[in-house]
C-alpha cells in the first residue's frame, strides 16, 4: 500500500504523490464521490493505490486548498461529497503523465521494458 504524502502548495509540474495522482486520474473521467475514487485508485489502471477514507479525504482537503480539485456538491442525503478536477488539477495531471511518459520512454530505450507493451 502506498502512503500518500503531499506538500501544501504543490506546484504544477512537480512530481505528485501516488494518492494525489490516483485521485486526479480518477477525476479526469468526471465528477465522482469518495468511494468511486477509492475504487478507481485500487484498480491497476488507476494506479493500484490502496486508498482508505482518511487518506482520501485528507488528500482531497489539501488538493482543494491547492486548487487542484473542486467540490461540486453532495448527495441528497448529504453523506456523499462529489468532486471534480479544476483547470489547475488537469494541468498538474498532464504534467505528471508527461513526466511518467518520459520515464517510460527512457526505460524502454534502456531495454528495461519491451517496446509497445508490458513485459
Amino acid at each position: 500500500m502506498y502512503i500518500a504524502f503531499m506538500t501544501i502548495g504543490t506546484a504544477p509540474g512537480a512530481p505528485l504523490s501516488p494518492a494525489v495522482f490516483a485521485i486526479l486520474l480518477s477525476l479526469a473521467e468526471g465528477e465522482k464521490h469518495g468511494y468511486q475514487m477509492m475504487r478507481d485508485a485500487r484498480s491497476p489502471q488507476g494506479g493500484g493505490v490502496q486508498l482508505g477514507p482518511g487518506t482520501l479525504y485528507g488528500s482531497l482537503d489539501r488538493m482543494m486548498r491547492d486548487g487542484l480539485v473542486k467540490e461540486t456538491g453532495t448527495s441528497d442525503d448529504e453523506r456523499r461529497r462529489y468532486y471534480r478536477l479544476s483547470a489547475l488539477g488537469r494541468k498538474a495531471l498532464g504534467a505528471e503523465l508527461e513526466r511518467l511518459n518520459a520515464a517510460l520512454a527512457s526505460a524502454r530505450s534502456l531495454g528495461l521494458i519491451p517496446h509497445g507493451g508490458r513485459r
Partner: protein
Amino acid sequence: MTRASQTSPRFEGLYSAALRLYPPVFQEQYADAMRQAFRDALDDGALPRRTLVPLVLRDLATSLFKEHLAMLRDTFSRPALIFNALVLAGISTVLALALYAIPQQVLRQGANDPQLQLAGDLVARLEQGVAPAEAVPAGQVDMARSLSPFVIVYDDRGKMLASQAQLDGSAPAPPDGVFAYVRQNGEERVSWQPRLRSASTRDGKAAVDGSLGAHRGHGLRIAAVVQRVGGAHPGFVLAGRSLEQVEEREAQVEQMAGVAWIAMLGLILMGTVGFGWFSRARAA
C-alpha cells in the same frame, strides 16, 4: 441497507468511534463522507473484508497521524504566533542580559572603593615626604589566600620600594603598560592576574590548591587601583584586594539571570502553545 452492511453494524460503529480521533475541524468536515465511503466499501462485494479491515486500520493509523500533524502545523506555524514568540524571546533575552550585566558592573565597580581610599591616603603621605617603608602599613598580606586589601609602592621606574603583600614569596609587578598609562593619566583601575606574570606560574594553571580563584580555573584575580605619586620622589602606589568574593556574587547573579531567562522562555513557550491551541479552530 444491503446484506453486507446489515451484518456489519459493529464494524461501522467501531469506524464511527475511530473517526472521533481525528482533529475536530477535519472530523466536522469529513466524518460523514468518510463513514459513507466505509459503508460503500462494506457494501462492495469486490473488496473482501479480510482486505478491507487491514486497509482501513492502516489508513486510520497513517491518516490520524497526518491530520493531527497538519492541524499542529496549521496551529503553530502561523506567522503572527511565531513572530510574537520570537519578539518575546528577544525581549526576555535582553532583560536577562541586563539582569546579569547591571549587577555585575555595580559589583565590579564597587570592588575598587576601598582601594581608591587606600591609594589616595598613601599617595598623600608619600607626597608629604614620608618614606615608603614607613608609609606602608605593617603586616604582610598573602595575596593567594587573603581577602584583605593591601598596598605596594613602586619608584618612578617601576621598581618595588615597599610592599604590604606577597605572592609566592615576592611582591609582583602590575601588568605591562600600567605604569606608562598612570604616568600620563594619573590613575588606572585594572583586574589584575598577578600569577600570569610569575615565572613559576606563567599559564595561571599552577594556582595552589585552596588558593583564591583556583576553583574557578582562572587563578588569582585582584581589583587593583594604581595612582601616580608626585613630589620630590615620584613613583606609583598600587592598592589591591582579591576579587574572590565579588566574583562569587557575580556567579550567583549569573545563575539567577540564567534561571530567570529559562523561566521567561518557558512561560513564552507555554503561552504560545496555549494561545495557539485555544485559537486553533479560527486558524484552521
